[in-house]
């Protein structure tokens, strides 16, 4: 009898908790991403959908495919449909401003992902400078231990975007905390693409191959630099390669198979998606949110990628407990505003 009573009480508690939770949850969220074919956004969407499913929220995704007109049109469709929250990864800053006004008029709260826009309520994004900085610190420690304290860097960068400039700047500042004499031998524009990164790195290495660290602003850039190094017939014995992003399988493959690829500045796109859904729930409930909600990043050293991901040979799965345990900073060390100073 006592057992039956306990079971009934427990069931009642679960029903009450579930209904209380459901009452505070948005039913439908519309997300207009800017470039769904990119691995980063695929994993952001994966994280969003996984967390939304846990909370019983439906997420509908539209891809702007780098076209602001398409983004505006998709967002207007969501507003017309009456989604509870709108999430946007802006294709460009100016184009999204009128959308924010229209959503506000329709009383639909908006969460931005990735890039800030004037007049926004809240933004979920990583800190690019910090990501590069902490990877740089780890690279400096590695160079002290394994590269005789020498750090000569080839940065396969992307000067077009402030986010990637911040990563490169953070990396050099971080490495100099460990090795003040660290030098930037090559500062390249790899276009963020693997083939372009390979081409410019090959030319730079032909000019001066006296480097021992390759830093890439994303995994494709780091791997393009590394492939150029290998194509030039050079050994990876006294080389360190550092990638950024960890958005796909490339970095896992590289860490497992390339002896020099020892550090990854991981940005956990799935977690960014997860955090964006949390932010959407908060704005839906009218809770106060900071202007910038930081999604955590962390340098992964060698096999420690297994702490955060499992890999079955074809797909990777995030280990939520480990990633959720990462504590993001309250604010970024440097932002794009600091680059203008």
């Amino acid at each position: 009898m006592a057992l039956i009573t306990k079971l009934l009480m427990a069931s009642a508690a679960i029903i009450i908790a579930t209904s209380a939770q459901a009452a505070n949850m948005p039913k439908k969220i519309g997300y207009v991403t800017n470039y769904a074919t990119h691995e980063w956004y695929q994993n952001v969407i994966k994280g969003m959908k996984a967390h939304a499913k846990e909370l019983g929220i439906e997420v509908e995704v539209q891809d702007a495919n780098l076209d602001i007109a398409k983004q505006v049109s998709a967002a207007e469709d969501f507003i017309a449909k009456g989604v509870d929250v709108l999430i946007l990864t802006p294709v460009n800053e100016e184009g999204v401003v009128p959308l924010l006004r229209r959503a506000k008029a329709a009383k639909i709260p908006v969460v931005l992902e990735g890039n800030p826009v004037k007049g926004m309520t809240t933004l979920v994004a990583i800190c690019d400078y910090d990501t590069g900085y902490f990877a740089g610190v780890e690279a400096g420690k590695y160079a002290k231990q394994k590269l005789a304290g020498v750090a000569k860097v080839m940065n396969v960068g992307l000067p077009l975007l402030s986010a990637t400039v911040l990563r490169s700047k953070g990396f050099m500042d971080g490495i100099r905390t460990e090795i003040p004499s660290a030098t930037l031998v090559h500062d390249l524009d790899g276009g963020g693409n693997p083939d372009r990164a390979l081409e410019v790195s090959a030319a730079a290495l032909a000019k001066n191959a006296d480097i021992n660290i390759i830093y890439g602003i994303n995994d494709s850039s780091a791997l393009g630099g590394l492939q150029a190094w290998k194509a030039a017939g050079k050994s990876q014995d006294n080389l360190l390669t550092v990638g950024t992003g960890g958005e796909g399988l490339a970095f896992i493959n590289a860490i497992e198979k390339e002896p020099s690829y020892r550090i990854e500045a991981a940005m956990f796109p799935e977690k960014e998606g997860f955090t964006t859904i949390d932010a959407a729930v908060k704005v839906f409930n009218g809770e106060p949110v900071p202007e910038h909600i930081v999604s955590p990043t962390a340098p992964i050293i060698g096999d420690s990628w297994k702490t955060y991901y499992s890999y079955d040979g074809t797909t990777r799965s995030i280990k939520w407990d480990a990633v959720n345990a990462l504590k993001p900073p309250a604010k970024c060390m440097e932002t794009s505003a600091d680059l203008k100073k």
Partner: protein
Amino acid sequence: MTEILRTGASGRTSFASLTGSGQLVLGVLLVALCLGISAAAPQFYSEANIIAILRQCALVLIVASGMTMLIIAAEVDLSVGASLAFVGCVGMAVLNATDSLALGLVSALAFAGAVGLVNGIVVTLLRVNSLIGTIGTMMMLQGGVYLFTREAVQNHHQLASFTALGAGYWGPLPIPVIFAVAIFALCAVTLRFTTIGRYLYAVGANERAVRLSGIRSARLKLAAFVVTGLCVGVAGLILASLMNAGQPTAGRGFELTVIAAVILGGTSLTGGSGSLFGTLLGVLVLKVIDNGIIILGWNQDLQMVVPGIIIILASYFDLLRSRHHA
């Protein structure tokens, strides 16, 4: 028939002096560029840099060889960049599944050849303008590659022979350069010394006359599309080897580099004239500029600006020369 051939051949001969002098200018430009860059940065003529330039030239030259034949036949293929990326992904996936370099190569060639065939059918059978038709194929391939794979196809097979395809050497020469030389020579011989080559010039110069003489011009164009596709197959697999992965994002803008090299080399976009030697010079000039800008430490945005200026100037001087000779 003989008349047509004579027209094609004489057309070629009369253009030969023009393209010949154009090639001389291009040759002088190339030498001047090399001397100028070497004077400012002696690393330019280091063995490592020459190999880096040759390797970069190889990929463009392989595809440009096929493209030259196609443009001489008065058609163009804008899908080569998108196909390059897709081929790498298909080839790598087959290599992973079979651990066989031969099967990887065959699948890459089959895929790229099929893309060329589709382009050819769209242009010759459906009579869609090749500029429009191959933009359509480009879009299908750019979207299709993401249906095939959402991310880069990694190298799980670790075949040494596959790595050698992009990064290996045969004697002092990088293997991609050997491939490029072989394909270039094959296309050059075909264009210059075979009936098919002469027909291609004739088709480009006056397709109607060629058709009236009983030659199946559509088949020739179809063959040129397939050859261009096959060249993309070889280049795509070499690129996948160099990058150690099949990258769906690779090859962006590659088609423009290839077409720019062909036009810079003196091949007319309207068809009927041009030569592979000119294309070779065009490839070298573009890649030396690309490399020189990095070696000199200039702003890399110039890598787009300078070739653009050179292509406009080369076309303009070619026009002036044509008027002068007319």
